[in-house]
Each structure stands twice: as C-alpha cells, then as structure tokens.
C-alpha cells in the first residue's frame, strides 16, 4: 500500500492511520475501541439500520453509523460522547421493551455495558408474535426478531436469490413474512438454511436445537394458526 492510499484521522483523541475505504468501525478497532453492532454482518450488505454503532463526527449534524461510514482524512471522531451513549442506551432499552431478547446473549451483554434497563418503558406494547412451526427444518419465532434484515438479504440478492421471505407491515408493525403468510413449504424456500445461520437472536432456529433446549417433544409445539393480520391499517 502506498502512502497516498492511507488516511490519518483522530478517534477519541488518538491519531489513527488506515487504508482509504476503511469504515470507522474498522478504524476504531485499531485503537482497541470495540464499537457495538447488531445488524452488521460480514456476509450481508450493510444497511445501517440498527444505529447502535453510531459515533459523533465533528461537523456532522447527526450521529454517523460506524459500520458504513468511511474514514476521511483529518476526521474528528468520538465513539463515546454523551450523545452517543444516550442513543445506544435508548435503542437498547426500546429493543428490550419490544422483543424477547432471552436468546440474544450479545445484546444482553450490551445492555449491561450501557447500563440499559429492560424495564425502562412500562406499559409499552410489545410485538408479541406467535411461533410459526410449519416445516421440518426450522422454527420461526418472530417474537425474538430484531428486524436486522439479514435473513431477507441472504434469501435474496446477498446469497440465495430465492426470494421466499420479505417484509409485511410497516413501522413498528413490520414483520418478516412470506407471500400472503403462506407456509414455508408452500413458498419458494429451498431449505438452504442460510437465514437460520445468520439470525442473531434465536428467531430462526433449527428444530432439533430448539427441542433439545426446551426439553419438549415436537407434538407439544404450538402450531401456529394462519390468522393473517393486516398491519398498517388506518384506524
């Protein structure tokens, strides 16, 4: 690498030199700063949706997602400013008030790191989504889904080009779903298992693992009714 391809910037008061095109996430690692991520995954297109990785960049009106923003010469970056901490903590608290994080140990650790309380939002409407058990390979327990988009992406253009799953609803009521909520066997799913492999929260789980974990027989597992719900209704 020639020197013209290198960039020097300032992260938390320390000077860092990285190759051009390096993300702030990678650059921060060089000074031992481990920036939290949730949606980011090496194998999928980064969409910067969870915003837990945000950092403060001087001259920018809003915080910047470190997972996609590239280092620029002389950038002044703060990875733990007051604003950054408030955002990370609030995002975690909102997440805990929305979905079941019991099988997302990494997010639980983050909750501890940021002193985030799972009880911060009393009376919050949780997502409360029933388990979908409709195929021999995996369970879909979307009550644990954090909408990281990884499964949709690997099913589509990031890997499999199968397009079995997409989104339903909008906003807070967004869910991962199939065409008219048809079962997985009825969809174009080819059971490649890639979605299960990238799911960070136990929302998608191989069946065997789930049975063993819960010590129950397959018959006991609730079979989900096909009760379709229209999500973004104007009421």
């Amino acid at each position, binding site marked *: 690498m020639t020197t013209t391809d290198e960039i020097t910037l300032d992260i938390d008061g320390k000077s860092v030199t990285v190759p051009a095109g390096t993300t702030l996430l990678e650059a921060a690692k060089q000074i031992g700063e481990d920036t939290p991520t*949730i949606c980011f995954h090496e194998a999928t297109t980064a*969409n*910067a*949706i*969870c*915003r*837990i990785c*945000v950092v403060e960049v001087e001259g920018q009106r*809003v*915080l910047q*997602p470190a997972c*996609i923003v590239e280092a620029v010469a002389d950038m002044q970056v703060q990875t733990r400013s007051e*604003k950054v901490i*408030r*955002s990370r*903590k*609030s*995002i975690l608290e*909102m*997440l805990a*008030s*929305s979905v079941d994080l019991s099988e997302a140990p990494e997010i639980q650790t983050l909750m501890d790191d940021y002193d985030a309380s799972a009880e*911060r*939002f*009393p*009376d*919050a*409407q949780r997502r409360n989504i029933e388990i979908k058990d409709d195929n021999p390979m995996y369970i879909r327990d979307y009550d644990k889904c954090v*909408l990281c988009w990884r499964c949709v992406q690997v099913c*589509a253009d990031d890997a499999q080009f199968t*397009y*079995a*799953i*997409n*989104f*339903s*609803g*909008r*906003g*807070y*009521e*967004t869910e991962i*779903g*199939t*065409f*008219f909520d048809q079962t997985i066997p009825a*969809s*174009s799913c080819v059971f490649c298992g890639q979605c299960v492999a990238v799911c960070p929260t136990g929302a998608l789980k191989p069946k065997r693992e789930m049975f063993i974990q819960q010590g129950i027989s397959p018959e006991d597992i609730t079979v989900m009714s096909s009760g*379709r719900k*229209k*999500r*973004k*209704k*104007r*009421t």
Partner: protein
Amino acid sequence: MESDPEALKEILEPYVPLGQSGLLPALHAAQKHAGWLSQPVATQVANALKVPLADVHGVIEFYSMFYNEPLGKKVIRVCTDVACALKGADEILKYHCEQHKIQPGQTTPDLATTVEASPCLGMCELAPVAMLDEEVETNINLDAGTSEKGGPRSIVGGSIRLLTANCGKEEPTFITSYGSYRAFKKVLLMKPTDVVDEIKASGLVGRGGAAFPTGIKWDGAAKADADKKYVVCNADESEPGTFKDRILLRDDPHSIIEGMLIAAFAVGASKGYIYLRGEYPYVLPVLERSLSEAREKGFLGENIQNSSLTFDIEIRVGAGAYICGEETALFESIEGKRGFPRVKPPFPTTHGLFGKPTVVNNVETLANVPLIINMGTEEFRKIGTEKSPGSKLFCLSGDVEKPGLYEVPFGVTIGELLDMAGGVAGGKALQTMLFGGAAGAFARPDQLDVKMTFEDLRTAGLPLGSGVLMVFDESRDLRKSLAHLGKFFAHESCGKCYPCQMGTQRQMEILNRIAAGDILPGDLERLEDVGWTMTDSSLCGLGQTASTAVLSAIKEFPELFVENGK
C-alpha cells in the same frame, strides 16, 4: 368484485415491459379492476411483471392504500390529523362508523362500505374534510348537516401574486392561457451551463423542506456523467398542514411542467416523473390533460421545438405512505419497491432514480423556475431579502379567521402574515402556532415579530419546513394535538432503522398517556431520551424530525408534561 383473469391480463399488459418498476401502477390498476388485491390477483401481477411473490406482498403491505383483504365498494376516508382534529374530525369518524356499525379500519359484512381514519389529506384550510372514494367533502358540519362537495376550493391570498398568479381561478390554466412556455423558449437559446448559473445566481433554495440550493443541485446532476438522467417532481405532499402543492398542481400545472423542462435542458435529462400522492386523485386528470397539451404543442417528446432536447414526463401515483416524499424512498417507490429511504451518500445528483443522476425538486421549487427565467435574476432578487430572495407560499390552518394559501415575499413577519389571514379566529387569544409542519416546532406568541426568512427563522429556532402555519387559540388542549402528531409519525415510520421504528411507537404511547392525563413518573425523561435518540441517530429525515415538535413543546410548555399537570 371478482377478478377476471383474462380481463386482468389485458389490464396488466402496458406494465409488463416496465418490469418491477411497473409494480405500483400495476397494483393500482389491478385493485381498481378486482376491488382488492387477493392472493390470486397478486400472483397474476407478480407473474406478469416477473417480480418475486414475497416482494409483491411486501410492497402491498407497505402502502396504506393497497388492500390485501376485501374492501368496501365505497371507501370513506376521514382525515383525523391535527388540523381536522381541531375542527371535530373525531366526531365525523364516529358518525360514519355508527352509520355503518363498524369500527375505524373495518368493512361492513356486505362489503358495501369501508370507513378509515386517514392521515392529513392536504386540505387543512377546508377542515374538517373526508374523501368518499375519489370525491372530496370539505367544511363538513355535522350539526347543520352541510358540507361542500366537488374538488377542494383554492383559497389564495397574500401580498404578492407571482407563484399564485394563476391560482384560485375558476379552472386550471390551459397551455395558451398559461403563456406557451415563454421561459422555456428563452432557455432553448441559452447554453445549459448558463441556465444552471442563472438558477444559482437567483439564490433559489428548495421548498420541499430541506432548503437546499437548487442551482447547486442542478450543477451536480449536470456534471455527472451518465447515459441517462432524470428529473423528478416531488408532488407527494403529505406533511400534515401542507396543501400548497395541491393548489399549484391543480390550478397552474403548466408552470410545473415548464419548470421540469427547463431542469431537463439544464442537466441533460431525457425522462421526467411526477410522483403524485395517492390522496390527490382529483389532480391526476388535470396533470394528464396538461401533459397531453404539452405533447400536442411539441413541448414534450423528441427534438422539442426543433432543439436537441428529447424529454417526456410520466406520472406515478403513490399509495398512502408519507415516507415516499423523502427523495430516496420516492425513487424506491418508482422502482416498484417498499418505500425505504436509502443511506446517503451517494446523493441523488449522482446516484438517484435507477441509480442514475437525478434532479428531484419540490413542486413549489419548480414553479419558481420559469418565473426566474422570465423575470431575470436581477428582478427576482428584488423580491424578498438579500439572503432569502423571492416569495414563499404559506399554508394557514387551524384557529385562524381566513385559512388558506398565502403568498408573501420573504421577510414578512409571522404576525403580519397572521394579520393578512384575519388573525386568530373569533377574536380569541393566541396560544401558539405549529410552524413548518408536523416535523416543525411550536412558536410562542412573543415570536410574532420574527421575520420569515431562512436566516431569521434559524435564529429563532423555527424550521420553515413546508411553509405550514397552524394556529391554536387559547382554549386548545395542546396535549391532544401532540397525541395526533405522535400517531402520525408512528403510522408513517417506514420501520427501517431502529430509533424511528421503535421510537415513534414509544413516543406515541407516552403522548397518549399524557393526553389522557395518566402520566407516569419519568415520562418526561423518557420522551426526551426517545426524542433525542430519534433526532441524533435515525437514518432519514422522518425520524430525525419526528420529535422536533414534541421537544419544542417540552421547552415552551413544560407544565404540560408533568404529573397532574392538567
């Protein structure tokens, strides 16, 4: 209604060559044919356009005006947003529900009628309003049993009539009465770079809310190297309290078309789109007629007026999603996808619609363009102030004596504008004004002297936004209005990024508690943490401004947010 596959096949024919980009128009057409988008109908659309089934379902699910369950033959949409709520909209919704013995969002068992609460329908000056299918009902008075029907009236006032010179008349301008594109003909004799320079020199900045200098935007697209470029007119106007674009589009459509033509010439674009919100169906025939006129007179098509310019315009109709007014979500929507905003950079001027360099401008911005060319920059800059040249359209609604659209030069004070509209309705005292829109801020009565220019408003902490001025008299319970704002953003968040996806929901829940007088200890701090997190960390402008009004209310009226503050 039943779908007839043979008939539907024929209906879908024109959209087949468009592929995924034809998805929204195809779904609109299919829904019109079949009454709603059932699984077989959606399958047929997917197969015809060669779009994966799950993706088609994802798109149907994203847009409020696409239905994948049976819909009533007649659909009543009652606007229950902030301005209409002040005028008794909730009662009107209740009335329709009781008439048909259903809840909001439901359809009668005989599939005759659906009743819905709708976000702002863009007729706030005529509040309260509703839409019965595509027909408009305004100034509804339940007690007297009266209302106005037909297209929404244009009430136009102010101290200057440049942009609105042709507005508020009996009928829309025709190409001849409009003036046969004099500015565009002038432009054809110029070099494209000189046109860009002229717009730069005029000091025109975008009127869509972001206040970006138009000339700089055009320059970026002009300099971008590509085989194809686009000009997009953002006519998605859905910001609660805003109705200016509706009036411009309907009363003076040719000024917008001419503005787009000039932009196309300046940047070298060959294709234009007007993205019209789905809730303005009555604007559609006016635009279609005007585009036909322009084509007949040789202003659209190949080698326009014997020049080297080839340009035509297509109208795309939205389907009930405020987020599609955000420029990159708008591109996604034209491309036939869910309206998810894209990460920026890259910016539209280099990577816009279909990944090509694109100029996207608001309706009012485009209406300024022919005006600037006709007047010349020097004359144009005599209007308004040094740093904010030109005139501005303001949408006055709420508790004001004469609500309507007002055109004034930049530099007029808020109080002067309010006086033009007859002051607070019924001579009551002013409590506050929502300035800029739902994403705006509350202004105090002692801010009436603030001059309305970009620079003065910035100092005063008031965003110009889309030019909304919604008046609240002393008797109003602001907590109820805040709850309406909260509902709007929770309903319209696209759900892509965490801060806004969950933050708009939590914000709505807390605001509902406050409006109901059930404040929990710590709610104020929760509201602030959620608000600042959305502001600082959201991916797009929706989340970044979803709590601007709430945070301004906390600052100006802290007593509203404390326990037992009733």
